[in-house]
């Protein structure tokens, strides 16, 4: 017992790292699916924010968190659909469309929230998700509280990561996805509908970003705040790069970023003399290092951010 109390700080740190990395992992996996199909979806931030608002609204009005998460995913998927129309159908520049979509989402979520709740002094709250202890496994010393006593979305996030890896790397569906992102013309000649695949991938990825946003407003917190994602969507994009476009690499990258955030909070509390800006900077420095190919070669999809046009003459 005494030992458990002694050990608690580092265990608490690891648990916090897992919790903080969960929304980043969900959003990054969504971004990965879109990027594998050749769509650079920088609208993750806006889609997360949409998910955060609609997840909160869903929980507030239905009282059911799973239903709220479903609503969040659908709402974010609608935002992704708008992004797809501009970026894929109209072939506008994906980066610019994303910046526009992010502004629209930031404005629209704030507007909807104020229209529904007004500007009251006390923010409306919901009952946040409770951790679910897995029977037997959660009783294991150290490992139990670390891995088997989390909220449902944590299990879902870390559960779908290997699934997404398997689908992308080992199934015909994943092959189709990669073909579209690596060489769209070749995919088209074998009868793959390039733009349909891109729509599907981006919308599915957007739904995951929505789920990540809902995690922020219904699990990590129990309120919605305007602009509450605070750049998490951009970190998710960095995680995809740091994870070298591999779902399993992304799990490690998300944990690294989550750990950096947890460390930053703890060092601040402990009053250690490292400027907190350095710790805030750390994940981005790691991403730059990864991009520069210091550790290994960076391997993005070949036709990332290139719209597809079949020359129909």
């Amino acid at each position: 017992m005494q030992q458990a109390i002694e050990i608690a700080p580092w265990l608490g740190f690891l648990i916090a790292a897992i919790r903080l990395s969960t929304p980043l992992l969900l959003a990054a996996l969504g971004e990965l699916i879109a990027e594998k199909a050749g769509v650079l979806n920088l609208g993750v931030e806006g889609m997360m924010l949409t998910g955060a608002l609609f997840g909160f609204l869903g929980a507030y009005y239905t009282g059911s968190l799973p239903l709220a998460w479903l609503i969040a995913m659908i709402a974010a998927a609608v935002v992704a659909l708008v992004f797809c129309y501009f970026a894929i159908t109209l072939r506008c520049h994906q980066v610019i469309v994303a910046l526009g979509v992010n502004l629209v989402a930031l404005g629209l979520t704030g507007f909807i929230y104020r229209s529904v709740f007004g500007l009251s002094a006390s923010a409306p709250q919901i009952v946040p998700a409770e951790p679910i202890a897995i029977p037997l496994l959660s009783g294991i010393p150290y490992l139990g509280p670390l891995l088997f006593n989390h909220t449902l979305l944590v299990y879902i996030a870390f559960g779908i990561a290997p699934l997404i890896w398997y689908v992308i790397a080992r199934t015909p569906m994943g092959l189709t996805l990669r073909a579209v992102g690596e060489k769209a013309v070749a995919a088209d000649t074998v009868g793959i509908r390039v733009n349909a695949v891109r729509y599907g991938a981006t919308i599915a990825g957007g739904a995951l970003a929505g789920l990540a946003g809902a995690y922020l407003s219904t699990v990590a917190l129990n309120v919605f705040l305007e602009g509450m994602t605070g750049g998490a969507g951009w970190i998710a994009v960095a995680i995809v790069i740091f994870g070298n476009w591999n779902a399993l690499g992304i799990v490690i990258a998300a944990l690294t970023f989550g750990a950096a955030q947890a460390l930053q909070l703890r060092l601040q509390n402990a009053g250690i003399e490292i400027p907190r800006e350095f710790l805030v900077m750390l994940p981005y420095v790691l991403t730059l290092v990864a991009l520069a190919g210091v550790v290994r070669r960076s391997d993005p999809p070949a036709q990332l951010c290139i719209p597809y046009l079949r020359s129909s003459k």
Partner: protein
Amino acid sequence: MGAARHAGIDPKRSILIAVAVSGALAGLAGAVEIQGVFHRLQAGIASDFGYTAIPIALVGKTLPSATLLASLFFAALGVGATMMQLKAAVPLPVVILIQGLVILAVVGSEAFKSRLLSLFAGRRPSVPA
């Protein structure tokens, strides 16, 4: 890039110089904000400027003259937003929403235009890449 190399231009060197000049100009923009507008240094002062600059350059179709007009347009939008808040009590989210819609409308304008034209011409839409 192959043609440039053939003409004796070093692409990597050109890209490095271009990006360095671009960064220097961005730094100048930041300095002007501090020295001319805020008169004091604070963290995150230019947070939105960088992200707004990207669509401005694209709206200006990467022509310096048109970029000048585009930045004037976005500056007017920003000033108008502040005025709308002060005079008409339009909430900030609505202002942000309008700015986002403007970016989408402008970025989609080429595609919309050619779709509309081809509609009148009775052909299938073909958007210039």
